[in-house]
């Protein structure tokens, strides 16, 4: 088994398409770093001029307000007016400031969630379907005839192969954003930023591993990347989007909600609860009630889904002829 896993890892390492996907993931992370660079740039001369002008207009307005107020106060009608000048912001408050690191990191790492999971799924699918597509599985089975071992080693390699790619992309994103703040000489904020970040990343990486298992399981079941893509699109439209709208109580069955719950420490959904109207006989009063899916439940549903799909893939792989 270890030998098979080692061979599969070497195959994974040698596949150009998988490097391409990992490269795209790094590129996406780099994109967030570039966006941070833009967000944290010092105010330009034009921005300073605009801020100065806005400050001047507001100060002039305040001055006119006081003058007018004093004029009114001098009359009988306005003798009870309070003509103290309003609290004006300082000029520096008119000049745009860079966002806090916690915000920027939250945006960047949160934005990497979907690309990381899609990349993990795609890598799992591609790693297995390539074998069927090139029809090399038959050759491989004449060397490693126990199909359950082949399935386990391939799935294991997909998981192990996906994690460094996801980790590298997240490291580039987080490291890049922090580096931007250091280069700009900006405040790194409080330590709690890192606690939240660590929690998110340690939940995202297992989710990526589950996505890779899901991809491998689907690939073993249908053997064709286009067919897997079709299933994923169908699931997204029919189950993730349409089903909760038709039957809101089934929302906890969707992967999207459970994924959000797992990554964000819980996720809410609403269901309509109705009860007899005490004022009108035969009528009902309905209201939207928020319910929560916990993080553990979300993780468990993701894990079970991947296990079921992999079991289906294993069943099909064991029973169907291989060319």
């Amino acid at each position, binding site marked *: 088994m270890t030998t098979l896993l080692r061979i599969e890892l*070497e*195959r994974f390492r040698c596949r150009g398409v998988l490097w391409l996907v990992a490269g795209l993931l790094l590129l996406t992370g780099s994109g967030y770093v570039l966006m941070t660079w833009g967000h944290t740039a010092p105010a330009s001369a034009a921005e300073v001029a605009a801020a100065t002008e806005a400050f001047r207009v507001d100060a002039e307005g305040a001055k006119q307000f006081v003058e007018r107020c004093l004029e009114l106060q001098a009359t009988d009608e306005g003798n009870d007016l309070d003509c103290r000048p309003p609290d004006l912001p300082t000029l520096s408050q008119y000049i745009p400031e860079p966002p806090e690191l916690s915000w920027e990191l939250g945006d960047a790492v949160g934005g990497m969630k979907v690309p990381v999971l899609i990349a993990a799924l795609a890598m799992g699918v591609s790693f297995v379907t390539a074998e069927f597509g090139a029809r090399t599985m*038959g050759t491989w089975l004449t060397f490693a*005839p*126990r199909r359950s071992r082949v399935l386990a080693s391939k799935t294991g390699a997909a998981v192990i192969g996906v994690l460094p790619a996801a980790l590298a992309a997240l490291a580039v994103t987080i490291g890049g954003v922090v580096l931007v703040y250091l280069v700009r000489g900006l405040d790194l904020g409080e330590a709690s930023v890192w606690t939240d970040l660590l929690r998110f990343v340690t939940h995202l990486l297992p989710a990526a591993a589950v996505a890779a298992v899901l991809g491998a399981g689907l690939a073993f079941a249908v053997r064709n990347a286009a067919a897997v893509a079709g299933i994923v699109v169908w699931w997204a439209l029919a189950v993730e989007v349409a089903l909760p709208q038709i039957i809101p109580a089934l929302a906890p069955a969707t992967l999207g909600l459970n994924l959000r719950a797992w990554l964000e420490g819980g996720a809410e959904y609403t269901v309509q609860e109705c009860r007899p109207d005490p004022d009108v006989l035969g009528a009902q009063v309905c209201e939207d009630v928020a319910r929560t899916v916990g993080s553990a439940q979300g993780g468990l549903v993701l894990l079970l889904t991947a296990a079921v799909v992999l079991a289906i893939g294993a069943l099909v792989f064991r029973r169907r*002829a291989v*060319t």
Partner: protein
Amino acid sequence: MSDEPAIRTRGLRKTYRSFTLREVVAVEGLDLEVPVGGVHAFLGPNGAGKTTTIRMLLGLERPDSGSIRVLGHDLPGGLGAAVAKVGAIVEQPRFYPAFSGRRNLSLLAQSVGAGAKVDGLLAQVGLADRAGDRYRSYSLGMKQRLAVASTLLKDPELVIFDEPTNGLDPAGVHDVRTIMRALADAGRTVLVSSHMLAEVEQVADTVSIVVGGRLVADGRVADLIGSRARGAVRVDVTDPVRGGEALERRGWIVRRDGEVLVVEGVDDPVEISRVLADAGVYARELVAERPDLEQVFLELTGAQGAARPQGVGA
């Protein structure tokens, strides 16, 4: 060595469903026996079920019914133990197109602990110079050579070649033939499925012929050919007309091939000399035509049903 054959199938049956859900029988009650050692040819026209049978022997397909025993192991339970001693090329050779020949072979070699054999095998099949090139850049012949090399990685007791000479040039065909013979001479069993009957005849010791998924003949190649050797005799005579008439009067079927007479149904060519001499016609040359495997194959697979011919078989 026990008397148990290298491969034994009993009542092997495999069907497929077509797109219209019609049942297509690929293999029908096949009883195949491949003796240990030597080269065994597995012949049959296209669609006869040869590749399906080979795929079932390797566990790539499940039979609907029947039993398979390979190298003393019952399938599917003993598949792992059996396949560990089998090297095989099934249909077209298939490797990763983006990997080099060496990497493809090396990955397979690692699974059987034969990494050290890779370079030697690449040299043996004449791919040493191109071993670093991507597989997708290989010609069909080079792909076949790489596949042959892959079958030898396991130091196999049984080697299965499914159309191993497809796409090979004459030198490549000769090399594969030499490899097959060498393997057999070293005590291994070689099962070869091929359409190149002349090649097979040169190298095969025993043969099984299948048609429509059924075995129609098997046995030693020489016996199979010999059983159909009530052959034709080519006779070059001084007077073909008179000679032909004399031979026909004897009850033989006589054809003219230019100035030469071809006499069929002769048990002993000496009889021809006697009849011609009695008629005052003299033979300049008299050659017994030896039927070859191709003729036997065509006769068996031509316009016949699935019945097993008399007098042939193990």
